[in-house]
């Protein structure tokens, strides 16, 4: 059992929790994720490690309430326990400090997994700009955290309540497009649109894929995606991939197996 040390409600849909998980905090790195089960009969769901504290043996997760499991998790309070919390899983994000100028693009709750990567790059001395997008200003989480680690920060909202009215890609088009690396994390359609633009300028673009997963260890094959024409398992080969190589069409199709249920987790478009 894993204790919830701290809980912060970021907005109506999104919650942050700090969990005591010594076996995860010991070795985790930005880009990795955990798989949790809220209770005895619950499903296993993957969530990105947004932050960690090795001394306190804790890791921080940020999740959007979309279905049964994330709703049940949202009902838990500080000092309650989570049944299972396994990780870290997946590969650390490929953080290469040779990339001097980096642009991070986060959409919806994808802003959360973007945070540890940008933080690490900033610490390594890179120039870091970010574009954050969401339904409304309310939906853009971690604004303060990002302002501490970004050189320039831009916002795009559906209703124009913060920053520009429109999509993150509208802002992207207006930047100088002179980055060494773009990291885009958000809904599949957002990541695809970003790569459609960056491809033209040949700016290396990493994306983070989030198919349905069960074990997260490469055992089941449920999380398979096609990258560079080859079948890859997002849990062990990813979750970060070269955006130019990803077969987004197939990813989008595969996400709708359980079409009755809402699974397009990243919320914002």
């Amino acid at each position, binding site marked *: 059992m894993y204790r919830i040390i701290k809980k912060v409600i970021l907005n109506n849909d999104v919650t942050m929790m700090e969990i005591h998980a010594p076996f995860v905090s010991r070795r985790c790195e930005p880009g990795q994720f955990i798989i949790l089960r809220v209770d005895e009969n619950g499903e*296993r769901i993957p969530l990105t490690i947004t932050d960690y504290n090795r001394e306190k043996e804790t890791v921080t997760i940020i999740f959007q309430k979309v279905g049964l499991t994330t709703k049940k998790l949202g009902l838990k309070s500080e000092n309650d326990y989570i049944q299972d919390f*396994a*990780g870290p899983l997946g590969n650390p994000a490929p953080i290469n400090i040779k990339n001097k100028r980096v642009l991070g693009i986060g959409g919806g709750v994808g802003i959360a997994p973007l945070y540890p990567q940008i933080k690490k790059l900033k610490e390594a001395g890179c120039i870091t700009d970010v574009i954050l997008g969401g339904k409304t200003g309310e939906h853009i989480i971690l604004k303060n955290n990002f302002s501490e680690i970004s050189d320039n920060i831009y916002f795009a909202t559906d209703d124009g309540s913060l920053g520009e009215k429109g999509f993150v890609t509208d802002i992207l088009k207006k930047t100088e497009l002179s980055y060494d690396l773009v990291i885009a994390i958000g809904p599949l359609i957002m990541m695809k649109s970003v790569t459609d633009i960056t491809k033209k300028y040949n700016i290396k673009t990493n994306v983070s894929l989030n198919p349905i997963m*069960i074990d997260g260890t*490469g055992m089941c*094959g449920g999380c398979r995606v096609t990258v560079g024409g080859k079948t890859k398992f997002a849990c062990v080969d990813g979750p970060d991939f070269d955006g130019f190589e990803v077969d987004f069409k197939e990813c989008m*199709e595969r996400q709708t197996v359980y079409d009755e249920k809402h699974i397009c987790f990243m919320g914002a478009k």
Partner: protein
Amino acid sequence: MNDLRKKVQIKELISAERNKNFEEVVIGYSEEEAVSESQRCLNCKNPMCVKGCPVNVPIPDFIEKIKERKFNEAYKIIKTENFLPAVCGRVCPQEKQCEGNCIRNKTGDSVSIGKLERFVSDYYSVNEENTAEKNNKKIAVIGSGPAGITCAGELAVKGYEVTVFEALHIPGGVLSYGIPEFRLPKKIVENEIDKIKNLGVKIITNVIIGKSMTIDDLLYDGYDSVFIGSGAGLPRIMGIPGENLKEIYYANEFLTRVNLMKAYKKDSETPIKIGKTVTVIGGGNVAVDSARTAKRLGAEKVFIVYRREEIPAREEEIIHAREEGIEFILLTSPVKFIGENGFVKAVEMVKTKLLESEKSGKKDFCEIEGSNYLFETDTVIIAAGQTSNPIISSVTPGLKIYGNGKIFADSETNQTSIKKVYAGGDAVTGAATVISAMEAGKKAALAIDKYFKNEPETV
């Protein structure tokens, strides 16, 4: 008097009913039936059956005790060589092992050794205590499948302090996430694991060695030795077009959802979607289990498509599958999956034939040109084999691997290329059997014990 050439028939659930539920198919012997079956054993002086058992269970000895109705004593005899008898009695391919070698097999039915083993294990309910004196050596075991559990148990009764690290939330390995409830009830697996815990073995779930901590971390943390029993958890990708269409599952995903995540229960929060016609590719136990599971989840038609002629799965399960209405399409292989709106709709099949040139003794097969045809289906389950998972080997410098990423281990001691690090089971051999994994776990435990017994005292 009964005809001693025939075995005492085992009671089973009726096939037309059981293929709609997940209850255990084989009901098992009653005391009377077990005693009666035991009387068929000739108590051979040179028992061939024992030679057929990979762990050398003293078969005639335990069967003698059944004759005397001393069931608990019979159990203790089995337990001297086998840590998971309730499991082995149910899933060993007995027809190729103990029973296949039984002298009675020559003139009639072999003695039902597996069923008798199962009977005594189910009968026994005493909680064993571990009376071994502690020797202050700490051992880390990676993976809680049959290999890991056996290694842990063997070491615990020799006085070692053993901790098992398991990646999933439930221990048992394939016994928990792979083999279905109707063949191996999870309650039985739990009981066997509880017995191991009773010996003082600590099992920590949700820890992925290679990710949460490395083998170096374990040795640094004060474990004196490590055993790797991480299994063959990596599905083999067939690499044919259309493999990633929706409703094409690898067997591991399908079975894991059903077993581990209990998708078979009506109120499950983790359902699995299958169509009316289900086509399973492969011929091993995994394929047969997937097919029977699909049938139980409500599929109307279930086919097993296998490229060879002889299905390698356990004999009893092939019979059960046929009884339950599973159809076998042999000498056939898929070449392409065809989709509609992203969902699989049909499989393009090709006929195969076995090649006669059998120098190696192993029959090979080839595709018959022009024999392709379309086979309509709503769901496909791929059970075309598995290989070793690279999570551990990729972060353990010096750990020698061979073949498709299998971990190298010495055939005598099961030691890997790293001193004090041992390995066994499917991780070393590739997908094999429960009993061979247990044998490896046991051999490693003996080798570890020998190593520490001979180790010069260090300061």
